[in-house]
């Protein structure tokens, strides 16, 4: 029996290692159309998300999620450079519910973040994008196709994200 377990472990690792290469694949031909809210309560349909044919990063986060805040802080330091080079736009979707939703606007402003920010208080967009837990990051190419996703954040992940964004930006030029 133990041999079977060991075999399964080896097999798992082998497949996982093989699956490691991060490649862009077509995930969604277009974003699922769901209403989210601007921080002032105004409804916006996600099908209207656009960036003039340039890449978009969509980042699911919450005020109670520390890695999310780390990720958005890290990206924010690099955001001006990224924008200049690729024209990328970052859209943040807070999954804070009614309890902490009112903290989102002061939190974002208190941090001085310049992202396009929305709230998704009952998780409609989160469910449509199959997000388990934040942080969960997606990249959209110039055609509005979702071509990359990543769950979790550790320092350094922003480099992989930027590689994808650069590649996408170059393709659409």
């Amino acid at each position, binding site marked *: *029996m*133990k041999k*079977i*377990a060991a075999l*399964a*472990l080896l*097999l*798992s690792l082998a*497949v*996982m290692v*093989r*699956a*490691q290469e*991060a*490649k862009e*694949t077509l*995930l969604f*031909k277009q974003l*699922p159309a769901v209403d989210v809210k601007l921080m*002032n*309560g*105004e*409804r916006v349909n996600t099908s209207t998300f656009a960036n003039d044919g340039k890449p978009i990063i969509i980042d699911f986060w919450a005020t*109670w*999620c520390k890695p999310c805040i780390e990720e958005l802080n890290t990206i924010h330091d690099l955001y001006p450079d990224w924008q200049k080079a690729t024209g990328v736009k970052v859209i943040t979707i807070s999954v804070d*519910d*009614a*309890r*902490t*939703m*009112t903290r989102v*606007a*002061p*939190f974002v*402003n*208190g*941090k*001085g973040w310049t992202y396009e920010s929305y709230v998704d*208080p*009952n*998780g*409609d967009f989160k469910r*449509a*994008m*199959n*997000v*388990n*837990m934040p942080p*969960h990051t997606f990249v959209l190419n110039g055609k509005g196709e979702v071509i*990359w*996703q*990543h*769950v*979790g954040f*550790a*320092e*350094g*992940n922003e*480099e*992989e994200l930027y590689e994808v964004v650069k590649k996408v930006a170059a393709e659409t030029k």
Partner: protein
Amino acid sequence: MKRVVPFAFLLFSSTLVTSLAGAQGLAGTPVHGNFQFDGQYYVPDSIIGAPNPPDEKFLNNAFANFNYESDNFLAGLRYESYLNPLLGFDPLYKGSGISYRYLTYRNDKLEVTAGNFYEQFGSGLTFRSYEERQLGVDNAMDGIRVRIKPVNGVYLKGLVGRQRNFWTLGEGILRGGDAELNFNEAFTSWNTKKTQLIIGGSFMSKYQSDQNPDYILPENVGCGGGRISLMNGGWTLSSEYSHKINDPSTINNYIYKDGNAFLVNLGYNQKGFAVLLSAKNIDNMSYRSERDATGNSLNINYLPALTKTHTYLLPAIYPYATQPNGEVAYQGEVFFNLKPNSPLGGQYGTDLTVNYSRATDIYKTNLNDSTGYTTSFFKPGDEVFFEDFNVEINHKWSKSLRTILTYVYLNYNKDVIEGRDGFGHVYSHSGILETIWKITSKKTLRTELQHLYTKQDQQSWAVVLAEYTISPKWSFAAFDEYNYGNTHTDLGGKYDQRIHYFTGTVAFTNNANRFSLGYGRQRAGIICVGGVCRNVPASSGLSVSITSSF
């Protein structure tokens, strides 16, 4: 022998999942979904009072969602499996099956859903159906929902159905509707106004027949209210009020009294500075689709707690959840961003957050009739439920070093919050230093030093945590939660209660697939997400978690 089988199965299934999802999903198809598996292998641990593992030593929770989407048509289902549920989850979850399925048709003006759905009216004081899978909370509706956008700026919703209660549906039938009007979208004269105004109103009715031989109970319980959201420049004001007719239930001890909930938030924001003030009054506002429902099940409405959600291990020992029978609460929070190269900001800038909240009982004058008591709006009682003062300073020292320094004072009314007797209040002070050191562009070391001081309850704790990540795939973490101040002994002095709760985890992430393995001790306590909590017993063992989106 028996022990090995679940592992083999588990690893095999994880292989399947990671290989399936290795290509980042079902490329280009309109079918998407996600998957999560949490399993634990329990080992006996008499020192921490872990209940001896059941005959089966391995327990798991798992689910998978599959959704299909085209322009006008959506469909999906979720399969859940608890074989058997992890300790700390309600045993009523035991079993497997399709717990959620829906069909939706939509166009620009209309959306119709048949089957299961989640929905929220306003901030949820009247109605909210939602899921929090980590806590085992799921009060999904099963019925029909219609959403209509008749003209610009007007949003209507109507629904009828029953709520999920583990593997069955609650007895009560819910019928409700919500209307919202956005002035700036609806009226041309408001299009260009700087002031933004949104108003809304909602109503919900619950029908449950009266089978009680002793009482004449209201069979139709209505609940409804209004809300407003106003914005101008950096100022925001939002408020909601909800009123419920008398609704005798187990939670309110079968009193025939109306209930109400009121919530108001005032905020001021500018870049780099923000203030938020909130106040709340709750009176007899537990509203469930069965009179005898307790715990986290069959809630029709949602009463948000006005307290910060602490995520560090030690302050999270004492979390707060709204007391639905009566509560007056306030919260104030200030956010600063001290700019880089400013006198206080340092070279790379500093974030500062100060937060204070307090929740107390409502003032009650007891009556000798069926309504129980009278009270006045926003008049607090003498009993403090919870008080929290915390400061967080997030400072970047260099391109590779960032620290977060946190202080938390908590006054936790253990008797009220945990529904016990004879413990009184727990007053605690916590200090936490988190350091994030980016060693190279891919390698990061994160450490946490935490200390919680209290003379009550289990007394003082200390935590040392280290996490090493190799971006973007690997993470290794270990922490020791040490209850060093505990002078109690257990089982007639047999066990010293100064216990080390040591845990180590390894996690592997590939895009949207994550696999983690942990081994260690979990202290007994309360796990909360978004203000809803569940009790977990102490346990020891090996835990496995797999999540995947595709």
